[in-house]
């Protein structure tokens, strides 16, 4: 019985995770607790008092916010895993090069790492779901489906970012990704307030972000008002971005690592 090559390259990331799992589990738990306390309960008490109930679909701010934050946390975790570690694999620790001196191929190295990103985001999202449930935020058991949706949201970022990072010589562009893409999307893709509150002119910008699709679907699943058509649309969009990102990454990894 032979193990698939991509799974063998995934083995590295799990080995490496044994060293840091305590710290990442703790922060994976702490982050949602802090956000849901400060914003969901704290800020939420103001919002609930002053906003017209229909604005948030008739639910409390905590119930509105939590599933959106889950998708946003998935985006952030996926971005973290697909930027610096990719640059490290190429330039710093050169892990990719070590793998490529063995029977593994460039595509195995890429798929193994992307599998790891998916695993890591599932872990973060599952913890998030637990915290969210402890806060009493979910309104429907369908919320468990929000975990795979969050993972898909993460992958829609991770694969294009990995593909892009493989073309760069330094980590400067990674900092730019955070500053000019991740932070604006985090703030304006419907996580903290409905996109309908944005001026009509910039609304379409929010609709093209993968995060908006992830937030919308996670929220609908948590509230129990997801419709199959809308769900399919969101999933299709996220899958398309993931697949395109993977195709780009295959090319950029190959030209960087097997020149």
């Amino acid at each position, binding site marked *: 019985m032979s*193990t698939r090559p991509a799974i063998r*390259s995934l083995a*590295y990331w799990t*080995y*490496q995770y044994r060293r840091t799992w305590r710290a990442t589990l703790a922060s994976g738990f702490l982050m949602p607790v802090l956000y849901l306390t400060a914003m969901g309960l704290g800020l939420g008490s103001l919002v609930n008092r002053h906003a017209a109930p229909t604005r948030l679909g008739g639910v409390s701010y905590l119930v509105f916010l939590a599933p959106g934050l889950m998708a946003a946390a998935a985006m952030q975790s996926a971005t973290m895993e697909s930027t610096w570690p990719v640059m490290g694999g190429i330039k710093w*620790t*050169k892990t990719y090069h070590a793998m490529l*001196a063995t029977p593994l*191929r460039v595509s195995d190295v890429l798929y193994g790492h992307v599998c790891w990103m998916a695993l890591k985001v599932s872990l973060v999202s599952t913890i998030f779901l637990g915290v969210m449930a402890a806060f009493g935020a979910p309104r429907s058991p369908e919320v468990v489906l929000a975990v795979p949706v969050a993972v898909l949201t993460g992958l829609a970022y991770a694969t294009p970012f990995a593909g892009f990072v493989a073309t760069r010589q330094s980590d400067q562009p990674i900092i730019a990704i955070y500053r000019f893409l991740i932070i604006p999307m985090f703030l304006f893709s419907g996580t903290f307030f409905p996109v309908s509150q944005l001026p009509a002119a910039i609304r379409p910008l929010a609709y093209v972000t993968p995060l908006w699709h992830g937030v919308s679907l996670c929220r609908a699943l948590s509230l129990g008002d997801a419709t199959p058509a809308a769900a399919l649309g969101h999933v299709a969009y996220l899958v398309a971005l993931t697949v395109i990102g993977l195709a780009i990454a295959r090319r950029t990894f190959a030209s960087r690592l097997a*020149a």
Partner: protein
Amino acid sequence: MSVDGDPPLIQARGLTKRFGGFVAVDGIDFDVHRGEAFGFLGPNGAGKTSTMRMIACMSPVSAGTLRVMGLDPATAGPRIRARLGLVPQDDTLDLELTVRDNLLVYGRYFDLPRKLIRQRTDQLLEFAQLTERANDKVDPLSGGLRRRLTIARSLISEPDLLLLDEPTTGLDPQARHLVWERLYRLKQQGVTLVLTTHYMDEAEQLCDRLVIMDKGRIAAEGSPRQLIDHHCTREVLELRFGPDDDHSALADKLDGVGSRVEVLPDRLLLYTANADAALAEATTRGLSPESWLVRRGTLEDVFLRLTGRSLAD
């Protein structure tokens, strides 16, 4: 070394590597036979690493043919790499993992059973004299220890062919000698070694046969002894004069003594079969060097003659 009918382990014909318009390897031919230690010598930028990367099936061949273990790297990369070990020029160890974990995870890439990986890891740690450091992280280890670990790691799949790209660059003499001794043991066990180096003593110590590369081409090929006999003389007389002496004029006076005189900024090198006799002749001709040195011709003389004395980069 090569038995008739035994196909070469590596065979290259017109092997070429281009990066855009730059030709890194310019149509070289060579054979490496099973069980030998074969060296690529050359200054920086000569094309040694590019050649190694092609042999390791990590870099596609631009033109010409290459067969490794009878297989084509373009189509059989994973199969070839399953049977070869690579010690790259820059270590690719995981600094945060322990010495042992570096070996264990590397073994997984080859899809070896975990039990076998653990067995071999213990043996290889012993072989590389790293057993006492097995549970230490790699990060604080010295360059010599890391190099030994990289070599141990490359052996986890028990390869038939070991590729070593500058195996001892940056190591202190003790560490270098230990690496050489271990590599010699591998050769005795029948592992074919292919290495690049720009250390002549390393090439003389380890290589049965070598090629000297310069600007992407092979400038000479043979055993260290053959290369010295062919491109150099048995002995070299080094003559040092005062800073105000005209070296070229002094060199003219030595015309006919030995087979060649080389004028350097600080000394004259006289290539000759008999350096003592040459020294006597030089004195007879009225030369009075401040100091002199009689030594054997070395691979370094061959190397400098073939690749020039100017810096490569």
